[in-house]
């Protein structure tokens, strides 16, 4: 869906992106992870030509991006930035309708679609439609940012640290909501972050970058368990394996063992379950029509990591 072939971006002497190649498959979330200044944002912005590359080729939907009209290209790609970039002089409704308006949809369709998008991100349109961005909390503003990016139903979504400015509790909520939305919509997503937990939680694959180059590109399980070099290893430290638990629901490790003790919601992740088991000293938790145990969790994770 998005293919980079030997792409380079130079700013005078400085090389921000250095000969990178990768392919983001249709419907996958590809996380671009790395320390500040590693070129991850630049890589993202090369796709919608907010930054023009100096070398190499980029194809999206099998077509060279240079063959698209720049404005049309951008309208066909959803774009979410950390600061939300909501227009302060427009209401929430108008903000969400920006791209459909640019695409000259008829008004009724725009309004229906915008209301649908508000529902998708879990906000009541009766409450939010006429609000101005200044009246929103950080989490709400970011939801509107996502709703706006999805409004014209683009098949590709570029997200530049979309949840970076939100507090940790709301961030986790937004991440889970985003997973739920993605399971419904199956967009091809390039997602830039410097947050290791976020990368492991959300990514189908993680592309780790350093100094303008791709160091390793793999599934979260593989990149954590089989780091290619010391840089990758140090980036995930020991916590990476623990964070992998957040990708799995408690139902994935459930055993058909009746247990009448403490219960945990079937929506919880294995990481939540381990947290509860550690803090309460329980060996087993009832959930998902059975129960989970230390052994079961370990067995499942070992299977995952092979």
């Amino acid at each position, binding site marked *: 869906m998005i293919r980079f072939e030997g792409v380079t971006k130079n700013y005078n002497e400085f090389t921000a992106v250095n000969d990178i190649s990768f392919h983001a498959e249709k419907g996958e979330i590809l996380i671009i992870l790395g320390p500040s200044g590693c070129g991850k944002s630049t890589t993202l912005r090369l796709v*919608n030509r*907010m930054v023009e590359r100096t070398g190499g080729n980029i194809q999206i939907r099998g077509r060279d991006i240079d063959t698209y009209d720049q*404005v*049309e*290209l*951008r*309208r*066909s790609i959803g*774009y979410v*930035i950390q*600061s*939300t*970039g*909501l*227009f*302060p*002089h427009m209401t929430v409704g108008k903000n969400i309708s*920006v*791209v459909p308006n*640019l695409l000259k949809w008829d008004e009724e369709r725009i309004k229906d679609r915008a209301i649908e998008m508000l529902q998708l991100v879990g906000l009541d349109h009766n409450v939010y439609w006429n609000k*101005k961005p200044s009246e929103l909390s950080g989490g709400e503003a970011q939801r509107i940012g996502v709703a*706006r990016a999805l409004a014209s139903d683009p098949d590709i979504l*570029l997200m530049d640290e979309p949840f970076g400015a939100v507090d940790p509790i709301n961030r986790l909520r937004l991440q889970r909501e985003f997973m739920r939305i993605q399971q419904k919509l199956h967009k091809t997503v390039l997602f830039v972050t410097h947050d290791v937990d976020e990368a492991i939680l959300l990514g189908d694959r993680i592309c780790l970058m350093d100094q303008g180059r791709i160091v390793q590109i793999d599934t979260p399980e593989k990149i954590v368990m089989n780091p290619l070099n010391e840089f990758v290893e140090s980036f995930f430290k020991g916590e990476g394996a623990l964070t992998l638990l957040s990708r799995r629901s408690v139902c994935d490790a459930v055993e058909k063992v009746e247990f009448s003790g403490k219960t945990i919601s079937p929506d919880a992740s294995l990481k939540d379950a381990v947290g509860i088991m550690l803090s309460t000293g329980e060996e087993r938790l009832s959930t998902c029509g059975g129960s989970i145990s230390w052994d079961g969790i370990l067995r499942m994770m070992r299977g995952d990591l092979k």
Partner: protein
Amino acid sequence: MKGNNRNLLYGAIIGSLILLILVFGEDFQRILVAISGKEGTTYLRTPVYVYFFQHLWMIGISGVASVVLGTSLGIFATTTHGSDFKQTLMRLVKLGQAFPSPALLALAVPVFGYGFNGALLALVIYALMPIVYNVVVGIDEVSKDAIEAGKGMGMSELQLYTKVKLPMALSVILGGIRTAMVINVSAATLAAAVGAGGLGVLIVNGVRTFDTALIMQGAIPVTLLAIFVELILKWTQEQLSWK
């Protein structure tokens, strides 16, 4: 409608006062003569509203011209094509605002001749400066995030102006227009000195003959008009501002 309509109310009061003076010009004159206590003052043969409308016409024309010219110049300076020209323009504008208006008027006369046209040119140039300045500053201050988002969503350069930059800068731009108009109401009194008419005629003649009543007949409507313009434009600015 926004909460604060006090400016509109005060504007209406000042507006009615002006109307009263225009309608009852002769009584207004009689009152001023009585207050000044000077016998044998020459009464005006032309009613005050004639001077008032000359004045209004002058600031109206120069106002429209300077708004059109100033906003286009300012917008052009903020585009990529005008970026070379922006710094020079801003320096010129800052310098120009420090230039005394009577001197500007005096310089305009040799170019456009004595009378209405010369005065008009000077007023347009003078009003241009706060407008250009605020247009450039207003657009420059539009948040980079909003511009980034607009571009990233596929707005053309023109749409970026009409949908993002100009609406967001509108309040600052209107602030510049307000300043320009208020300055122009009083600067237009000087136009009388080059024979362009207006309420300044009364003031200039009054000063020449030491006639307080005559001076006040010009000065009071000019002051009220300046306050009126200030209040109404301030109200408009508040109505149109997104903040």
